[in-house]
């Protein structure tokens, strides 16, 4: 029987029922990979974005490099990681996939942080300096809280992007929900491919909703209501 023909929504539903444990395991792998990559990407991207507002000449260069990384086809970037990390015997698996995802997340995070901090109302910045805040106090008490929605928008873009691109990790042995799609294609199991696609969509939408919720909780009412 050719599984490529005549599959129905019922087949996909049955696939989910029969393989729930496997799908959950892959989901956890996917979340681990993407989650860790995003955390590291935020730790690099947000401080870098803030720093770039103080160094205009470097800002152009860094944003251009991040843009170029974004234009590399994702499958090629993952492929490029293999020879590089082979040098330290980590050619396939978690490490190259993780690094590729961190690189992909940089542009939205750096660009949004940079734009956000650069567009802080100059009068508010002036007032913060004039009343005697140090640079760190100004950032933490005034500039970041007032631009949190813009910074968070960059992070949300990066998360949703990475959940999708994370599929390719399966092709370099890093696991995740991409396994369903990779195996489904090679075995001709369309229901498996569809199940994988649905699982990834659900994960992406849930992650975005959770981040929106967090954003709402942490954004001051004085900022969100404006």
């Amino acid at each position, binding site marked *: 029987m050719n599984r490529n023909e005549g599959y129905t929504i019922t087949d996909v539903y049955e696939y989910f029922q029969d393989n729930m444990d496997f799908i959950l395991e892959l989901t956890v792998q996917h979340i681990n990979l993407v989650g860790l990559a995003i955390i590291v990407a935020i730790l690099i991207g947000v401080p870098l974005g803030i720093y770039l507002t103080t160094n205009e000449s470097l800002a152009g260069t860094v944003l251009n490099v991040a843009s170029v990384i974004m234009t590399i086809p994702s499958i090629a970037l993952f492929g490029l990681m293999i020879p590089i990390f082979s040098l330290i015997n980590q050619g396939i698996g978690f490490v190259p996939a993780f690094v590729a995802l961190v690189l992909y997340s940089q542009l939205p995070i750096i660009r949004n942080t940079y734009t956000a901090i650069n567009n802080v109302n100059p009068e508010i910045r002036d007032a913060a300096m004039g*009343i005697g805040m140090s640079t760190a106090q100004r950032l933490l008490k005034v500039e970041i809280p007032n631009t949190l929605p813009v910074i968070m928008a960059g992070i949300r873009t990066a998360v949703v992007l990475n959940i999708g691109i994370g599929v390719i990790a399966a092709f370099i042995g890093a696991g995740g929900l991409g396994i369903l799609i990779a195996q489904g294609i090679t075995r001709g199991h369309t229901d498996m491919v569809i199940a994988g696609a649905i699982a990834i969509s659900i994960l992406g939408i849930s992650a975005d909703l959770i981040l929106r919720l967090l954003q709402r909780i942490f954004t001051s009412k004085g900022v969100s209501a404006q």
Partner: protein
Amino acid sequence: MIEYNEVTKVFGKDVRAVDNVSFKVESGDIVVLLGPSGCGKTTLLRMVNRLESITEGNILVNNQRIADLNEIELRREIGYVIQSNGLFPNMTIEQNVTIVPNLLGWDKEKKEERYQYLMNLVGMDPDDYRKRYPHELSGGQQQRIGVIRALAADPPAMLMDEPFGALDPIIREKVQDEFLAIQRELHKTVLFVSHDINEAIKMGDKIALLRDGKLMQYDTPANILQNPANDFVAQFVGQDRTIKSLSIHYIEDLMKHKQLNETTDQKFSKQVPVNMNLRDALGNILESDEKEVAVTDENQKVIGSIDFSLISQYVSELSQ
């Protein structure tokens, strides 16, 4: 006390925004930096808390050269108010008002006490506004909060950069009056930037009139109006300078030099209080049927009357 000693600010190679300016602001005085846009008044102001650097010369605050002080600590000891109030949108009114005490590490009770005191000073209910955000307030209320935020740590000096410039005329009058009432109580040393001659006359103990970075005249409003140092000053204060000068003299002042007209059994259609300024009094005289109005003391008792010729005589005595 704030003292400018031969202060010069050069932007780029040869743009002299402030050119060899020296003057002294006595403790407890309001000095208005006045002039057309681009005259360097804001730059001059922002040099005091080192938001602008000084190219040449020096500035003393309470006899200390500001260049020798830590800039963060210096700023915390000088209140700063700007035109758009610069309130932090992410903070509640309470957080905005107590931000400097917070930076200085005051304890909770002291901050609360201060918050209550300051809100009452501008007639806003401390509890009603405590949890509200700046965008929920009217322009006038925001500006009041901007002023008390600058007063929060009780700094001896205040820098105010066109603080009431964005308010509509009626609210502006009101907030100006409120600030003058506060100043009569607190006696801060205030540098106040304005481009409005009427505001300068009203607010200033002295006016520093600037043009192209140079100090044209530094004197009391009365002297600037009566004896302009040069053509620019005369032109800036306007051809109606005599009328303007009436607004800084009150009927009380006139009574020190002149007798009010006696009112026997005469009835006047208008009455004015003795603490009214002569400009408003003149307005009332022109509007009245008799071209003369009754003057009343604090107890609403008529103590005499005033007419145009009395004001005219007083003015000519002043300019002698």
